[in-house]
């Protein structure tokens, strides 16, 4: 409860973790607010169905609040004035000159604040992915502020969890992105770092995942626990195994 998990990927695509967490929290009965900035709703829906969850049904029940970033952006730019009465678009910062993510934060807060009729277990905020906000013109400080505000509301006040996906590269020249990623790393309770193999592409081992439990944040003078596994993604699940012990080798 009240945990901030950072999903980080380098040289590979870590979105399988997002699909996993989405179906995991929905199955656990939590109320999920999913800020999906990069793909369409049907993409997540089809993968979730393979994992055994129907996102449309979850939306209808009110368990899932889905912000489809692509659609919202189009409505903002091409939509008529009448459609926007009442609720400002969560992605308002794209059309404004101030890179202020307040509208997005308000959206998250209103969707996760429990109404009286709700019977869901803790709220969860899922973001895929944060690096897109930088590409859309948000300043890195604004992004960090947004995450900070979300943590205060979701983790501390509502005792929920946050899961955020960011991209990073080793010799990346994208300093803004590196700034955001490093800062988030320092504040996370759990980091799942997905990396492509350093030796290049392999058919049987798609990458390695480093699980870092930030025990050092609890100020008990312990070091962070780091575990490294390799994984292979299949159609409906992902298999993890110790390094060097993939099924193809044994």
């Amino acid at each position, binding site marked *: 409860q009240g945990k901030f998990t950072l999903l980080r990927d380098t040289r590979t*695509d870590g*979105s*399988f973790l997002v*699909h996993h967490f989405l179906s995991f929290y929905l199955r656990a009965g939590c109320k999920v607010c999913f800020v999906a900035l990069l*793909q*369409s*709703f*049907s*993409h997540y*829906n*089809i*993968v979730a*169905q*393979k994992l055994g969850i129907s*996102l*449309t049904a979850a*939306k209808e029940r009110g368990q899932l609040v889905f912000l*489809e970033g*692509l*659609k919202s*952006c*189009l409505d*903002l*730019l*091409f939509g008529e004035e009448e459609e926007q009465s009442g609720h400002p678009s969560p992605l308002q910062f*794209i*059309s404004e*000159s101030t890179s202020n993510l307040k509208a997005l934060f308000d959206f998250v807060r209103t969707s996760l604040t429990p109404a009286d009729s709700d019977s869901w277990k803790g709220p969860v905020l899922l973001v895929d992915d944060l*690096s*897109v906000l*930088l*590409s*859309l*013109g948000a300043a890195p400080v604004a992004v960090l502020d947004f995450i900070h505000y979300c943590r205060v509301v979701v983790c501390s006040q509502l005792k929920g969890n946050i899961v955020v996906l960011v*991209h990073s*590269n080793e010799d*990346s*020249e*994208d*300093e*803004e*992105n590196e700034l955001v990623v490093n800062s988030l790393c320092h504040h996370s309770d759990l980091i799942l770092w997905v990396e492509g193999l350093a030796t*290049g*592409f392999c*058919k049987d081992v798609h990458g390695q995942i480093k699980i870092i439990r930030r025990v050092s944040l609890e100020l008990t003078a312990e070091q962070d626990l780091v575990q490294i596994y390799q994984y292979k*993604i*299949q*159609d*409906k699940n*992902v298999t993890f195994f110790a390094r060097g012990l993939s099924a193809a080798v044994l």
Partner: protein
Amino acid sequence: MAAAPAAGGVARGRGVTSFQRKAAAGSRLAAVAGTRPSVRHGQLLLSSGLPSLDCVLGGGVAVGTLLLIEEDKYGLYSNLLYKYFLAEGVVCGHDLFVASAKEHPDNILKELPAPLLDDTHRNELGEEATAVKSEDFQDSMKIAWRYQNLPKMEASPTTSTKFGHYYDVSKTMSPELFQSIKCHSFYLPEELSLQAKMKTCNMNSAYTRLLESIHRIIYQEGFDGSDPQKKQKNILRIGIQSLGSMLWGDDICSSDTPEDVHSLTKFLYVLRGLLRKSLSACIITVPAHLIQNKAIMERVTNLSDTVVGLESFIGSERETNPLYKDYHGLVHVHQIPRLNSLICDVSDTKDLAFRLKRKLFTIEVFLMRRRHVTYAKKVRSLQQLIRAAISTILRHPSVRKPHLEIQRLRDVSDLTRTRGVGPPPPNSRPC
């Protein structure tokens, strides 16, 4: 895979999104011309115009996605890919949207390569292909013999496919083929005089106008499914040339610290939204080698679906390097999208090269062939030795089946030729 009902995300009654599962029951959607469903996830695929590139991309370009080509140094080969994509649209009967800031779209359309549709042309092409193959075979693999059996990543030109066609670069497409095609064009110098109606979002005005134009066409022509009367669904192929170059009013290619770093990425994000909600696909060529700020290219890659980079050998030392003499450049596949699935169809071979033969442009697995004249001489002298050995052995009275032995000796000589082991001593028996 469960026969899941199509989940088009259309709860708002907006119409068909491009990601609707088409694999259910066949009766659902009359196949749109020039597309085929992907085996893995039922996603509709289009041909990129180059069958060897389709192989590399796992079957083709998915409807609703963006194919980004990082231009080679002089833009020659990326321009070819751009034209192939549009030419494929003409042959399949798709609608075209041609956008450029440097060439008038009418001129671009006049220069599209002619498709090879006749059998006569196909045979000619087949001859050329086999001629190349036979000359290759003579100096077939000596050292890298393991690679000999790898597929060359080129579908045979003699098989007739409705998906993916071959084009003759030396001829241009005849105007009759265009008659039934709707071509929309966007030529920046002409558009700049008109007023922009869209809300600006601090984006470069050229990009704003282009987005507005694309959105208008998609909406008016019903590619987003907003017109339910339209029974015959069609695809819109969008081609944008040299996006990000100075001609589009963007200074990311000319300056280290550009004024507006976010215009191009915002454009790509909005374009992604437009593509996802319509039956369209887009090819964009970007002069990536000119963009100084590499952070921009990283963001551009993250916002695109398929990213392919071309590196031509023109002007580099590889042009005269004998190792590369069969090819004109290398192909780098930087990204392939994972659509509606946890995994993607990525090909195993990562070393790809392209070459422009007299008529055909192909992408192949990059194989280094070493041609050593002295080694060939050694092999020939070895073959003579073996033949002499055969004849002495055959003269021996105890030899019973001469033909078989000759056959087997031939295999031995084949073995030594391809494996590069030392010559066997002349007195050894055949194995």
